[in-house]
């Protein structure tokens, strides 16, 4: 026989359960609820399999603190951090600034500008792996196109471009900028084209032309788009593998790796997948704030493009 307190507990539990069921069911009745579940389950299964599982598994693989201690002791990892910061700082900012300027240039009228734009976007349009491999061959010190051209035209023996850490890293950064500037130029060009003509005309009447127009009209109206593009580009670049892998190969002497290529090297070249995952995971302290800032910017409702 139950005492008074137990009866009250059972009653509360039953009420809680009923409330939970009601909130889950909403206003759905009988079979409608089953249908709703049947439709939702596949999406949940896909989400769990292809989104949640890989992320959780990756976090689990790189969860041991000893992996990070090992990484920090590794001189190649230390150099990789420096490379990644330089790659991000120069790769993103030089590229975005060039894209901003070029998007203004491509606003000019004329059919030839359209032809020029078509040629300009070619580096972005062609497959990146083959172009990066071509750059790698082109920069070969002994028989690469660049040094052969230098010798043939000027009788100058060019350097071994990929033999020095800073030249090789520079080659990687330039290759990245060359490859991706056209894409971001197109994005910013679209942003510029969305600025209403009336605003520009009014500003022109008020004397805001040339640099003044750029500073007082274009920059404020493109600022949000520029910032979001920069954030996105930074996130993309943090995971970029191809430019480094195919242009410098991470060499010489593993001195031009970035986190993405070091992760692959650790995982498969030295057969330590957990260490590889940890190398890539070590970018999370930068990626997560970037994603948060990006989300917040995307929620901004101010009148900005």
């Amino acid at each position, binding site marked *: 026989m139950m005492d008074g307190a137990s009866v009250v507990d059972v009653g509360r539990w039953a009420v809680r359960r009923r409330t939970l069921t009601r909130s889950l069911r909403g206003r759905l009745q009988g*079979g409608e609820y*089953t249908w709703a579940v*049947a439709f939702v389950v596949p999406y949940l299964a896909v989400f769990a399999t292809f989104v949640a599982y890989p992320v959780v598994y990756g976090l689990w693989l790189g969860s041991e603190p000893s992996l990070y201690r090992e990484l920090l002791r590794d001189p190649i990892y230390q150099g990789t951090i420096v490379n990644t910061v330089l790659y991000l700082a120069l790769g993103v900012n030089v590229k975005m600034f060039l894209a901003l300027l070029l998007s203004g240039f491509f606003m000019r009228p004329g059919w030839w500008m359209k032809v020029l734009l078509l040629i300009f976007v070619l580096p972005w349009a062609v497959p990146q792996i083959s172009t990066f491999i071509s750059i790698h061959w082109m920069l070969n*010190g*002994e028989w690469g196109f660049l040094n052969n051209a230098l010798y043939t035209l000027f009788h100058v023996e060019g350097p*071994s471009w990929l033999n020095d850490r800073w030249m090789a890293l520079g080659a990687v950064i330039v290759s990245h900028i060359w490859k991706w500037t056209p894409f971001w130029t197109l994005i910013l060009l679209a942003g510029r084209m969305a600025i209403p003509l009336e605003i520009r005309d009014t500003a022109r009447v008020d004397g805001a032309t040339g640099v003044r127009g750029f500073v007082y009209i274009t920059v404020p109206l493109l600022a949000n788009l520029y910032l979001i593009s920069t954030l996105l580009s930074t996130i993309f670049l943090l995971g970029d593998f191809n430019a480094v892998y195919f242009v410098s190969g991470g060499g*010489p*002497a593993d001195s031009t790796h970035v986190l993405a290529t070091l992760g692959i090297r650790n995982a498969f070249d030295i*057969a330590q997948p957990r260490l590889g995952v940890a190398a890539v995971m070590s970018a999370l302290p930068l990626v997560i704030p970037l994603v948060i800032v990006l989300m917040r910017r995307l929620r901004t409702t101010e009148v900005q493009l």
Partner: protein
Amino acid sequence: MAHLTRRSVLQGLAAAGTTRLLAFPHVAKAAATTASVWFAQGFVQDEDVALRKAVADYEKASGNKIELTIIPFAPERQKIISAITSGVVPDMVDSNPAEILSLYGWQDKWVDVSDVVDTQRGQFSETALQSAQAYNNVTKKRGLYGVPLRAGVAPCHIWRTLVEKAGFKIEDLPKTWDAYFDFFKKVQDSLRKQGERKVYGLGFQVTASGVDPYNLFSAFLIAYGGRDIVTKDGKLHLGDPKVREAAVKAVGYLGGAYRDGYVPPSAVNWNDADDNNAFHAKLMVMDIDGTLSTEVAIKEKHPEWYQHEIVTHGFGYPNDNAGKPVPSIVGFTNGLIPKGAKNVTVAKEFLTYFIQPKVLGEFVELGLGRWLPVMPALAKSPFWQNPNDPHLRGYVQQGLLGPTLPDYYVFNPAMAEVRNQHVWSLAMIDVAKEGVKPAVAIDKAFKRIEEMFAKYPIA
């Protein structure tokens, strides 16, 4: 219309499952005779043809089914490492990269295959048998986890045409180590005097990519007397003065040759195939590079190169500076069965079939001889002893019949880390590019090696 209820959905699923089991019972039965096998794609197509033929012959003879997946070299190693890490494994893989036998043997990830190897134990070379074992850190014992299938050694590849253009003959090649490699410096000097702007005497892979630089350094280390750096018991002997002296000499010679301009400058950033490409482009007179891929790759397109212009036959390695033979390190491809494989029985049966001398011999011969057989008796075949082939006899002599050693990581997996983390490469590059003294570079390398071995203690 009747409502769909939770009960009706569950009943439907149960009914569908039962129907499938009743309707297709042979699927379960078929799975018992099917094994999944992963193998690396060959450098030339003939290697894949040879593998497919062996598999087809086995299927015909046994009635079993082999689900063969041939994957390019680099993706296969990623696939294998991913499979072992996740635990979802095929029934058999080749050892790609070779050191996974030792690394995962340490972690008790392989099925013991001594019963398979026992069927042909007397046929295998001693080096092949050593390469098939690994120390298991769970059982604290060594076990036989690999079934040797094929082997490769790193011969010296030489452009006869460049040697002759420089005014020398191949017969002029000295027989001892330093004099042998110094000879190519003279060849370069002579070619430069004739106006050859971009020809280098030595194609040393002074790079931190791939396995070539490790193999190159090991050859020099052994030639200079450092053979006992790791002994069969898995112990490291960096304190042995002979080992240290040999390592210092090796890094000094290899790094010094680069520093002095006898190695192509781009060699410090070569990847695995770049040395082959540079050799074919006649950028250097000679290189030491694994397997006969350098020759096999051009056999069809440039038969005159294969037959007359490139030399490997009859040399192997020169003797050491005291005139004694220098053993060659041989790398092996082993068949491995991961723990967790669903059909160990068929995988073992397939391997047992595969290592019959007739099958194994045909497998390597159909692959144009890029890979060596692992049984000395197979070296006597007309294919390997063909007097009209300028490379095969020398290659099989160097890698199977002559003095050989397995790679050091078969004794201790720490040496696989030394290889993969390019410890020797970094020392060579320090000397070659940064002007670091060989002794200082070796002290730094030894410190790293000691740290790596500390992770793999063998009682």
